[in-house]
């Protein structure tokens, strides 16, 4: 999870205590409106990283007392975990889409006009795109390029979503004329030992998740 790795990276920059880490994380992601991380999450993540040996508390212990602020530093294992994270790509999540679920639910329930649902979504996306555009324009490119890049990403995703809505609208008739998606009936309980195949023949339709 990236909060964990961001903490490692910020500790690689210099040792910090929890409160400082939270502020530094918010600065990196472009403010708490973009990504609000609760103090509790920072502290529990730090404890977990400490237990795993990726960070260590380096503040001086007073005379048997708890130090008022626990300052953490990255360990060699932590640095290795960070390098590992940098060396791998990030797979985006696209399949779990709330609007798609809404559209399909509308289709199977027959409750609502699908074109209306698409137009409502289009309007929502345009408002978001307008807000992102206005916000991007409010940043000074000489000082806030990182925030501008993040908003560029948001705008481009919104643009792609809008194009996808156009395509969906054009293909709505095809979707309506095709059989409704039906669940595959599987035998109940555990599959019997030695039989790898279902005793029910698979449906003729090609399933996207197979």
């Amino acid at each position, binding site marked *: 999870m990236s909060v964990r790795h961001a903490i490692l990276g910020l500790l690689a920059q210099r040792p910090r205590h929890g409160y400082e880490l939270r502020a530094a994380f918010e600065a990196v992601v472009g403010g708490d409106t973009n990504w609000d991380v609760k103090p509790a999450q920072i502290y529990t993540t730090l404890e977990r990283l400490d237990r795993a040996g990726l960070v260590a508390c380096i503040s001086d212990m007073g005379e048997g007392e708890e130090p008022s602020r626990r300052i953490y530093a990255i360990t060699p294992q932590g640095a290795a975990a960070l390098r590992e994270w940098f060396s791998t790509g990030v797979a985006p999540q696209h399949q779990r889409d709330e609007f798609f679920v809404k559209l399909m639910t509308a289709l199977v329930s027959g409750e609502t006009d699908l074109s209306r649902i698409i*137009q409502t979504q*289009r*309007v929502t996306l*345009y*408002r978001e*795109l*307008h807000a*992102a*555009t*206005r916000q991007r*324009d409010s940043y000074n490119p000489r000082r806030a390029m990182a925030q501008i890049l993040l908003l560029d990403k948001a*705008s481009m995703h*919104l*643009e792609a979503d*809008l*194009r996808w809505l*156009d395509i969906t609208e054009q293909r709505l008739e095809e979707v309506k004329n095709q059989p409704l998606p039906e669940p595959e009936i599987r035998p109940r309980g555990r599959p019997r030992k030695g039989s790898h195949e279902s005793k029910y023949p698979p449906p003729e339709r090609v399933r996207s998740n197979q």
Partner: protein
Amino acid sequence: MSLIQTENLTKIYGCGETAVTALDHVNMQVNAGEFVAVMGPSGCGKSTLLHLLGGLDRSTEGKVSIDGTSLAEMKDNDLTKLRRKRIGFVFQFYNLIPVLTAIENAALPVTLDGVRPAEARQRAAEWLERFGLGDRLNNRPDQLSGGQQQRVAIARALVAEPALVLADEPTGNLDTKASDEIAALLRQVSKEYGRAVIMVTHNPRIAAYADRIVFLKDGKIVDETLLERKNGDNAKMLADKIKRIGD
């Protein structure tokens, strides 16, 4: 009163069985200082609408009024005069004259209108400077980037101080960065200089710069969307929308 308004605006090309309805009873109104984007699939009537709004073509039925005067009732001469004084046009391919410099291109509409050349140049220079082209006044179009040429074209559209600017795919020939700059400039034209700007585009990113999007499909307005929530006109907008859906 709105600056420009249409009532049941309809345009039919051809007649009899081959007739094509390009625009079908369109009602819209745009106020001074408003930036409106017109969107829709190709062939939905976007360009036809822009031509009718600009008095470049005449409607089959319904009317366009600017400042309360119906364009259909105007004589050709008066219509030409209104186009020159009240409306500025911006096109996809800039339509600059290759042998003229930036300042000469921008000054052209008022020079043709009989303004003294020195004054025309002065006015053109002011708009070009506002649009960041102060050091490009004497460059010809082929010495300018696409984005700069379009800025010259927008300066030319504004030099006669029109109340309305009509832009037909103004970023259609530009890369993403220049497109954003032109869209931001058109927004500035509406907000800072108080002009009504109506822009046809198929680019969602560019449409998002507007205050409002009019969606056209098969020659009809299918939806009208306010992008920014503001006090006052929002309630009216919503009421109009509910009425339309109820119809």
